[in-house]
C-alpha cells in the first residue's frame, strides 16, 4: 500500500473545477513529481491534498481518508505543504517561522533538535535566525520555506515550485539539499515543478498533468526519455 493514494480527485475553488478525475500514488520514502504546463492543475492538486482547495474523490493517506478534512487536521496527520510563493511569515523572524512549522507538534524538545538539523541543512538560515523572514534573499526565503516544512517532521512533504524565482545556481543548491533530505532522511516528497530537467534527475516517479488530467505516468527515467515530454516540458527536440 502506498503512503498516499489519490483516486478520482476533483478539485477547484468555489464553482470552478480545475482538476478532474486525477489518480496517482506516492510510495513511502520516494520522490514523486507532477509535471505540467501552467494551468494544468498542479498547484490545485497540492492544495487539495493539504485541504485548502475544495476537493472530492478519494485521498487516502497512510490508509486513512483525508479528502475534505480541514488543513489543520491534515497537518496533524503529517503532511507539510510548502506553497507556491513560499508562504513565509515575512514580519516574523527566521526562528519564529521555523517554530511555526512545528506548531502542531507536541514534542517541544525534539522540535528544537529538528531546528538544529534544519540549520545544518541550511547554514545560512542559522546566521539569520533573528532576522525578519521578509528581509531574506529569494534563495534564503525558499530555504526557509522548505525548512519550515521539515520542522513538522512530515511523513509527506509537498513542494510547490521550489525553483520559482531562483537563479540556476541557487536552484541547484536547493535541489541538492532536497535530495539529501530525501535520500538520507527518507522523507517522502511530492514535488510540483516547472523545471522538469532538474526534478527528473532525482525523482523516482513522475506524473504528467494536462488540463486537469493525468495523461502520462512512469518512472522518472521513462518520462525523461519520452519524446512528447521532452518536446513539451524539457525544452528539447
Amino acid at each position, binding site marked *: 500500500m502506498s503512503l498516499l493514494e489519490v483516486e478520482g480527485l476533483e478539485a477547484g475553488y468555489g464553482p470552478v473545477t480545475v482538476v478532474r478525475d486525477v489518480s496517482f500514488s506516492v510510495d513511502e520514502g520516494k520522490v514523486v513529481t507532477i509535471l505540467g504546463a501552467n494551468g494544468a492543475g498542479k498547484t490545485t492538486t497540492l492544495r487539495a491534498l493539504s485541504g*485548502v482547495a475544495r476537493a472530492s474523490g478519494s485521498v487516502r493517506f497512510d490508509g486513512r481518508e483525508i479528502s475534505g478534512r480541514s488543513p489543520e487536521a491534515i497537518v496533524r496527520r503529517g503532511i507539510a505543504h510548502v506553497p507556491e510563493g513560499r508562504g*513565509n511569515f515575512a*514580519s*516574523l523572524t527566521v526562528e519564529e517561522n521555523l517554530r511555526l512549522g512545528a*506548531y*502542531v507538534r507536541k514534542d517541544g524538545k525534539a522540535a528544537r533538535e529538528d531546528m538544529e538539523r534544519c540549520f545544518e541543512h541550511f547554514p545560512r538560515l542559522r546566521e539569520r535566525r533573528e532576522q525578519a523572514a521578509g528581509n531574506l534573499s529569494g534563495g534564503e526565503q525558499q530555504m526557509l520555506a522548505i525548512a*519550515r516544512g521539515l520542522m513538522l517532521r512530515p511523513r509527506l512533504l509537498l513542494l510547490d515550485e521550489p525553483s520559482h524565482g531562483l537563479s540556476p545556481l541557487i536552484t541547484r543548491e536547493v535541489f541538492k539539499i532536497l535530495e539529501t533530505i530525501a535520500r538520507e532522511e527518507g522523507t517522502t516528497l511530492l514535488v510540483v515543478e516547472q523545471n522538469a530537467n532538474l526534478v527528473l534527475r532525482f525523482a523516482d516517479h513522475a506524473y504528467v498533468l494536462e488540463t486537469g488530467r493525468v495523461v502520462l505516468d512512469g518512472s522518472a527515467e521513462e518520462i525523461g526519455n519520452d519524446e512528447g515530454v521532452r518536446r513539451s516540458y524539457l525544452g528539447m527536440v
Partner: protein
Amino acid sequence: MERFVQLVVDGVAIGSVYGALALALVLIFRSTGIVNFAQGEMAMFSTFIAWALVESGQPLGLALLAALALSFVGGMLVERLVIRPVEGEDQLTILIVTLGLFILVNSGAGWIWGFENRAFPRALPGGSADVAGVRLSWESLGILAVLLVVVGLLFLLFQRTKLGLAMRAVAANPASSRLVGISVGRTLMIGWGLAALIGAVAGVLVAPLLFLDVNLMGGVLVYSFAAATLGGFDSPKGAVIGGWIIGVAETLAGSYIGFIGSDLTILVPLVIILGVLLVRPTGLYGSPEVVRA
C-alpha cells in the same frame, strides 16, 4: 513649572486611556485589516456591566474582573457572529457592519440601562502624591500603571507564548497559518476577545473621570483614532505612545491656548489626524504598505 508637570502627567494618564482603546483598535486592524468603529461602544457596554454588578451589590474588584471576563467572551462572540459572516467582503461592507454594531451596542445599552448619567465608583485611590516637590494625583499615576501592566502582559503574550506566536502568524499570513495547522478562525476570535477586554480596561479607567452614560466612549474613540493614526495603525507600541502624545497635547492645549479652553479640545485630535495623514500617513511606528512585484 509645577502646573506644567501636573498637566503633562494628567495628559499621560488620560492618554493612557486613549492608548488602551487605540491598542484594541490596532490589535484588530493588524490581524484582520478591519477598523472596528464599534470598539468604543463595546467598551462602554463592558463598563455598564461592571457598574450594574456593583449596583447589584458585588464588590468593585469582583465586578471589574467579571466585566473584563465577560468582555473577552463578548468580543469573541462579536467576531464569530457579526464579523465572520462578512469576512473577505470589501472594506465598505465591513465598515458599515462595524458602524451598525456601533449603533446596536449603543442603543442596546440605552435600552437596558437607560440614557441618564451614572456615577462610576473609583477603583483607584484619591488624593495626591508628592513626587520631587510636585503634587501628582494618585489616580493619574494609577491609570498609567494599569496601562503599563496591560502592555507588559500583552508583550509577554505575544513574544513568549505559543498562542501569541499564532496570533502574530495569522496577522502576518493567514493562508500559511492554516498550512502549519493554526486554526485561523479560533485565533481571530481570541484576538477580538482580547481587544474587547483591553477596551473594557479603557472604559472602566475613564468612567470615574467622566459620568457613565451610553456616550461615554464616543469622544474617547476620536482621541484613540488620533492616537492609533499618529502611532501607525498597525503598531501596538505606536498606539500607546500616540495615546500619550495626544493626551498631553490635549491637556496642554486646553490650558495654554486661550481659545481652545475646555470646549474645543476635540480639535486637537482632529488636527493631529489630519496632520499625520498629510505628512506621514504611516504614523510614527507603522509599517508602510509594501507591495512586492
